[in-house]
């Protein structure tokens, strides 16, 4: 199963080769989408991980033991879709195609799993309905 996670590293885990271990030890296919180390040396990594269930569970255990927090990326995306007026402005900037318009109804289709955390939608929405938290 393929799924995006945000991994948050504390100061003492930032310099460990965690990603290398995930690949070598647990045979996880990793696609790094976004990475950041902030001024206080806490690190954040947006990755898409692909592995069987068992490997994923072992991987999560390993992350816990190494003080790396993991959260499904979708949980860091807040979109108040109930307020959406389907103007379509956000679809102008969403190149990951997490925000598209239905060809017939022209209503917004939101696929949070496709989001790459570029945050362009937060500026494009005239109603300010998006909040995306990567490293905050």
């Amino acid at each position, binding site marked *: 199963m393929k799924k995006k996670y945000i991994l948050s590293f504390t100061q003492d885990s930032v310099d460990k080769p965690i990603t290398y271990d995930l690949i070598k030890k647990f045979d996880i296919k990793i696609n790094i989408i976004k990475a950041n180390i902030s001024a206080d040396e806490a690190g954040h990594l947006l990755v898409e991980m692909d592995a069987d269930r068992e490997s994923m569970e072992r991987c999560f255990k390993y992350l816990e033991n190494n003080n790396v927090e993991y959260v499904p990326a979708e949980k860091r995306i807040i979109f108040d879709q109930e307020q959406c*007026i*389907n*103007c*379509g*402005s*956000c*679809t*102008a*900037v969403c*190149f990951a195609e997490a925000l*598209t*318009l239905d*060809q017939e*109804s*022209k*209503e917004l289709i939101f696929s949070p799993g496709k989001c790459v955390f570029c945050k*362009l939608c937060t*500026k*494009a929405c*005239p*109603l*300010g309905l998006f909040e995306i938290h990567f490293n905050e």
Partner: protein
Amino acid sequence: MSAKTIQEINEKIKSGKSVVLTAEEVSEIGKDKTAAEIAKQVDIVTTATFGPMCSSGVFMNFGHSDPPIRMQEVSLNNVPAYAGLAAVDVYLGATETDPENPRYGGAHVIQELIEGKAVHLKAKSTGTDCYPRKSVETSITKDSINELYMYNPRNAYQNYPVATNTTERTIYTYMGNLLPNMSNATYSTSGELSPLLNDPAMETIGIGTKIFLGGTVGFVSWQGTQFHTTKPKNEFGIPVENAATLALIGNLKEMSSEFIQAAYYEQYGVSIFIGLGIPIPIVNDEIARAVMIRNEQIETTICDYGTNGHPSIGKTNYKELQSGSIEIDGKKVRTAPMSSLPKARKIANTLKQWIDNNQFTLSKPVQSFPKNTSLNSLSDEGDK
């Protein structure tokens, strides 16, 4: 050639025999029918749009305090309102902003008033013999004040250019966020559903036309500002740039925030989405032909908003725009609307329902709009 009068159409509405279609429905049905057939079968076509329209606002009268005040400096939720009118009359423009919060403005105050929320009023004056009070501070709602009516100097633009950006940096505009190197293009009309694209010569729409405005009945009060009737037209009589406009009026107290929505465009400012619908009486074959217009026949100009003067860099049509991408100079460019087609469809269907239920009859314009108009421009004294 079949011809009907508006009076005959209204009688059909009253007897429950009128045939009403939305502009999208008539475009679809019209594919394999002649204008004469449509004129015979259809009585009314409903058109609609729901897009950001900056030139909007509301007039209001607060009522007099005791002792009374001649308001000179007025704010509502800290958004300044224009008070250069009689003592307690003001005009609140949709794009006016709270000096301490550029993301909050007149549009938001208007939406809160519609929703019945309390709004904080502050007013100051130098005081006169007949209006001695020098300040007032209180909270108002739509029910606590007297008149509260929307007056929009310019809405319902007949067509509008597509915006793109050929420069190397993102630009933030009223047409949305335009990414560098023509990575996207935005457009803002509801195409074949748009009011003034269904009666491009404005044969049935004029001063006094009764319309749907913000969820209630409103009226066309005048030609809108920047009313331009001599822009280049295509073979279907459609101006291929922004052309005619309408000034609209309606009772804000009866409106719904389902059809009026405050907005903020990044680094541009506050604006407001206005839901409006106009019924077009099919009085003759010519009007029938006009309402049968399809998205592929409605062309518009592509403009480069990254370059001064927004020069034209191509042409497209609404079928292509609504498909999600267009081609400019051989490059495939993603397109996105600025106005909501689902909302416009809802408005066209609501208006259709009002007519079907005999809750709305049509009006003949009291006066037609001027013909052969064009626009003046403004030059600064320092410009050459």
